[in-house]
């Protein structure tokens, strides 16, 4: 049976301590700049904060994974290299990378530190994963959220590295690392700036009939009746019309979050080494709740006890949930 490590989000030093205290095997975090894919205002770490965080986590037996998982635009590569050097100096346990230039630099400059392949690299076949393993010594791949469990089981047999999958949180629709929807509407890039549907471009407009529309950079992403709770305007969760859908529909996906807690036993059996909880942008209490519940569930499964998932369902705050691509090919 795999170790089934729990990889938990740390958007802030406080969230990091919370996740470690709640039983995270590892936490992942980033610096306060474009070098990571959650470059949101008020999130992430200064080098000083990261130094303290590494000390705190290591004292409690948890690892710290540094996300350097964006794509440096030409002319700005030094920022990513410096971030890697700083992370190495501060003793992080692994780098999470996507760009081949960044991977190559770390493999040559910091060969003693583990490389994990970010979901942003979109490696969805054994061949693609092996490319990164053989060229950069990648030790773990974070799989795109597009594979079924039988497919994951098959990939596991054909690759020389560990597998990490997302189990809970935001449900990305597009192949990560290949999406410029946000840049198309806002001028800020997910790949280059670490930004997705940025809050600075969000507006909610109340209409005379009591309805509310959510907008991103002036584009209406969704509309809500007076009684409905207005959601955040993420482009791939928006409601649009098409020639065959004149009334409007969720063209890509409904506002929905990923919850694979029911599939946890199967995923462990399929050989998944580590489970990632999404949510570096979420609150401390959210992190505490989710990590605590998943810690207990994983421990129960590993001890052969039935796991109680009811607590996890409650955490989704009434949001709709999906098992996404993992359960059936019909999702596609």
């Amino acid at each position: 049976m795999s170790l089934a490590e729990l990889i938990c989000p740390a958007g802030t030093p406080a969230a990091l301590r919370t996740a470690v205290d709640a039983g995270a095997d590892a936490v992942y975090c980033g610096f306060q700049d474009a070098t990571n894919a959650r470059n949101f205002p008020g999130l992430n770490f200064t080098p000083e904060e990261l130094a303290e965080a590494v000390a705190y986590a290591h004292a409690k037996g948890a690892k710290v994974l540094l996300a350097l998982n964006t794509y440096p635009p030409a002319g700005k590569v030094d920022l990513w290299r410096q971030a890697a050097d700083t992370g190495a100096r501060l003793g992080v346990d692994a780098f999470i990378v996507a760009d081949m230039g960044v991977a190559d630099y770390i493999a040559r400059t910091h060969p003693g530190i583990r490389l994990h392949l970010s979901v942003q690299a979109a490696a969805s076949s054994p061949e693609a994963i092996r490319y990164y393993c053989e060229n950069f010594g990648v030790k773990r791949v974070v799989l795109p959220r597009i594979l079924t469990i039988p497919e994951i089981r098959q990939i596991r047999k054909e690759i020389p590295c560990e597998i990490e999958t997302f189990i809970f949180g935001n449900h990305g629709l597009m192949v990560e690392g290949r999406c410029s929807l946000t840049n198309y509407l806002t001028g800020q890039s997910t790949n280059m700036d670490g930004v997705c549907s940025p809050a600075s471009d969000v507006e909610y407009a109340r209409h005379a009939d009591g309805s509310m529309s959510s907008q991103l950079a002036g584009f209406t992403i969704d509309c809500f009746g007076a009684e409905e709770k207005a959601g955040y305007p993420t482009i791939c969760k928006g409601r649009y019309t098409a020639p065959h859908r004149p009334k409007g529909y969720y063209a890509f996906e409904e506002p929905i979050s990923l919850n694979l807690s029911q599939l946890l036993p199967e995923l462990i059996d399929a050989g998944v080494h580590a489970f990632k909880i999404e949510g570096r942008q979420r609150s401390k209490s959210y992190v505490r709740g989710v990590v605590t519940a998943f810690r207990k569930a994983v421990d129960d499964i590993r001890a052969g006890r039935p796991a109680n998932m009811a607590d996890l369902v409650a955490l989704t705050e009434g949001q709709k949930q999906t098992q996404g691509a993992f359960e059936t090919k019909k999702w596609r």
Partner: protein
Amino acid sequence: MAVREMIKLTLGPIAYHWSAERRRDFYARIADEAPIDEVYLGEVICSKRAPFFEADLPATLERLERGGKTVILSSLAEVMLKRERKATADLAELASPEIEINNAAGLYARGDRPHRVGPFMNAYNEAAIAWMASRGATHVCLPGELPAPSIDVAAQAARALGLGVEVQVFGRASLAVSARCYHARAHHRTKDNCQFVCEEDPDGMPLRTSDDRPILRVNGIQTQSESYIDLLPEMGRLIADGVTHLRLMPQAVDMVAVAGLYREALDGRQTVAAAEEGLRALCGNVAFSNGFYHGAAGYRRIANAVPA
């Protein structure tokens, strides 16, 4: 003008599910009439479509080469299923023609043998390009969202390594790919049961916001820009910055005429303003954009301060 005459105009792979007949007619005209130097062939978006026109590929290739075009075969952007892995591996084994790789699975299969790096490969910077060149890349198509200052740095670095450098200057931008088929979804189907409904939309399926503003186009698993990229006015700067190849993406408009306008503007036989006017007339009501190039929102059209 000498430098400009060295610049290659290329035709990217057809992104849409055009019928085999439409493709045959299209490439016959391109071969005979279009001032295009290089043509990328093959299915990049959806592996289910390939069987419809695969049988025609050798004849199309031969026809284009007879018309004086260099032909390059492009690989799938998304590789996950068995048939996609096999298609990618088979392509990587070809000694000729040249191939353009759009997924790391293709890079793995190709090893150190020469190849082109496609726009889905995320060659965002000089470090990634240097790495790819060290593994056999001879040519790189830069990501569509890269802004001008980065194109400059990337192009100079690639040129110094002897690589060709390509930028898309016409057609809808690829904004995202997914495992899910949004054409099928719009018609209450799944990808496995799509019945190739994407064939109904030869220029993509338009999505509009609830207040009726055009926003995106759906092409199977791909999401594209509503606007056509038009960097005709920016070609002078692209070339000055070291770009060697300018890519036109096939849209459902008169692509022979489009290619003619770009070529004439390149050669100085038409002013940029006149070529732009011609392009506008060819493309109906479609919006043109150049925001990515200017570091702005991609859909925007930024007035060009410096005439080419």
